[in-house]
């Protein structure tokens, strides 16, 4: 192959890698934002939702031998239930909810969930088969695994589902109303408590989806939560906290920049790239790339 052609296929290869990494950051980042919008806090147990999603999927497909679509559905429901229980038992009963108190509660829940995952699934790492085989697909000299297509495709479905839900359903609109102004929403007759519960449910569901689609590639163990949560949190911050589409864009930016850095500079600096972007954005635009500076000023956190 001539120099130009091979250069292009390399670039494409790096791009695929970046899109795959970015999709995962984006999904985790979206999860943070949903809860942030309804409660104003960062849910530190978000990474644990991802872990539970991955581990439950492994159990259902590899041990219980369920088909992938059925296991997918059951896993999402299971983790959504965990999210709901978390809200009902740890967030709702708090008498004077302030940001610091709630954040500390989510940290406690994350430790608890991590311990539970260790007890149920043990300390080893678990793997599962790729959804549809692992034979690579060739595109202009670059290759990608079918699982990468699944990851990017499922992210797209989730994003489209979100747009429809938040813009075209009553519940979605109510949730947005609560995010914009909780008191006003309550005066308009929206039960804001239920919206908080719903946001935990949605956020847990998205976390579970992220866990399910990456487990065939990275395997899953009970300690993964913090690591997975970190980059997703970075994406949420860079995209502008509370802005789910910002998180998707920022997650993709992180993923692609990291892959390009690994390809063209050196893989030793790959992780530094994400941190560099995070720092630059925090210095220049503390409200994030897509966040509104005015809205950020009104926030408690």
């Amino acid at each position, binding site marked *: 192959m001539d120099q130009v052609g*091979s250069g292009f296929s*390399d670039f494409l*290869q*790096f791009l*695929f*890698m970046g899109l*795959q*990494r970015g999709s*995962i950051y984006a999904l985790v980042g979206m999860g943070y934002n949903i809860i942030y919008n309804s409660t104003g806090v960062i849910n530190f147990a978000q990474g644990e939702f991802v872990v539970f999603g991955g581990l439950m999927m492994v159990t259902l497909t590899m041990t219980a031998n369920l088909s992938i679509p059925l296991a997918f559905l059951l896993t999402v429901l299971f983790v959504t239930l965990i999210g709901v229980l978390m809200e009902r038992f740890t967030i709702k009963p708090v008498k004077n909810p302030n940001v610091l108190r709630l954040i500390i509660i989510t940290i406690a829940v994350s430790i608890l969930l991590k311990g539970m995952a260790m007890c149920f699934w043990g*300390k*080893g*790492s*678990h*793997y599962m088969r790729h959804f549809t085989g*692992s034979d*690579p697909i060739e595109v202009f000299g670059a*290759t*990608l*695994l079918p699982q*990468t297509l699944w990851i990017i495709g499922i992210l797209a479905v989730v994003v489209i589902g979100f747009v429809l839900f938040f813009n075209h359903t009553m519940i979605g609109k109510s949730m947005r109303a609560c995010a914009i102004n909780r008191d006003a929403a309550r005066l308009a007759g929206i039960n804001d408590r239920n919206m908080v519960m719903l946001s935990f449910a949605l956020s847990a569901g998205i976390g579970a989806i992220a866990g399910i689609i*990456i487990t065939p*590639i*990275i*395997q899953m*163990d009970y*300690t*993964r939560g913090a*690591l*997975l949560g970190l*980059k997703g949190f970075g994406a949420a911050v860079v995209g502008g906290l509370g802005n789910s589409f910002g998180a998707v864009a920022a997650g993709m930016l992180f993923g692609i920049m990291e*892959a*390009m850095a*690994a*390809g063209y500079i*050196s*893989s*030793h600096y*790959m*992780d530094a790239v994400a941190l560099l972007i995070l720092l630059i954005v925090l210095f220049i635009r503390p409200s994030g790339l897509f966040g509104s500076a005015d809205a950020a000023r009104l926030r408690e956190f």
Partner: protein
Amino acid sequence: MRRIILMATAGIFVLMVSSLAFAADKEPYKVGCVFAVTGKASWLGEPQKNTAEMIAKQINDAGGIDGHMLELYIEDTQGENNRAKQAVKKLVHSHDVVAIIGPSRSGTSKILIPDMQRAKIPMISCAAAESIVNPVNPWVFKVAPNDSDAVRKIYEHMNKKGIEKIGIITGTTGFGNAGRNQLKELAGEYKINIAADETYAPGDTDMTAQLVNIKNAGAQALINWSIVPAQSIVPQNMKQLKLDIPLYQSHGFANVKYAEAAGEAAEGLIFPASRIMAVDTLSEDHPQYNVVKEYKDNYEKKYNDHVSTFGGHAYDSLHLVVNALKAVGPDPEKIREYLETANFVGTAGVFKFTPEDHCGLDKEAFALLTVKDGKFVVLGE
């Protein structure tokens, strides 16, 4: 009130008498264990604790060491330096142990060296770092083979196959970094040229960018040095990129789950590991055969879990202490002297300790293994 005090006193007396009766014949031998049973290194500490408990039970069921029961005091370091220090203090001052086995991690082992020197109690570490026994401290030993010997084993094989130009890809954890340094340091000695040097983080999901660079650098073989599950992605990505060069892994690959996760892509890769990982294909004439076979069968039957090299380190260190107790009795100084000249066939290899070499293993502790039908087998030459 008076009655309560009387009853309590009576109770204490009963306890004392009964404990006397229990230890009527001979004083028990006390050995301390410091393992990372919980925490981030629990995958090391847990099999070690299980192994130590299993061996102690076997010995005591068979009547102890010359009639002395073996009493283990197991402390959990949680993989943390401070807790390891506290644990050793407790073992030395409250329990009067005659020797300590563990800790599980290199960092915690190194930090305990001054404590062992002060307490004058021998310690046999289950961690791998060479700096634990180099420079030699008279009281500190280790039973895990050296990382550099794993590198030597790989480079030797490459020399035999005529491979000169290689790529390396390492995880960014302590294990990966140490391996990367060793690979670079020893390359010259074996006339090997590292044409590409790449890394990945434990949470990474795709290494194709790094592999494209390794491919473009014209490497004839690739070494993937890591201990995290993410290493299983490398063979899969190589297959995806049709990068058809021999793949070598580190001994950090010695976990059957990693091979299962990499699936078909892992077939034929080569890695150095302790022989305990491939007992079924080990020749019965091998000096270690009986030891590893017995340990593997007992452990897997009792705990219903795969045997690991890490648990094997506890096997080796505890048996060394037991041999010493048999030979010289419960005197720490004499145990130390015994260990310095001990010869012992263990799970990690055939040990030959000397006052200058407190590890006692060389590169022959590693066998080259390969993956065949998802199982680890000894590589035919």
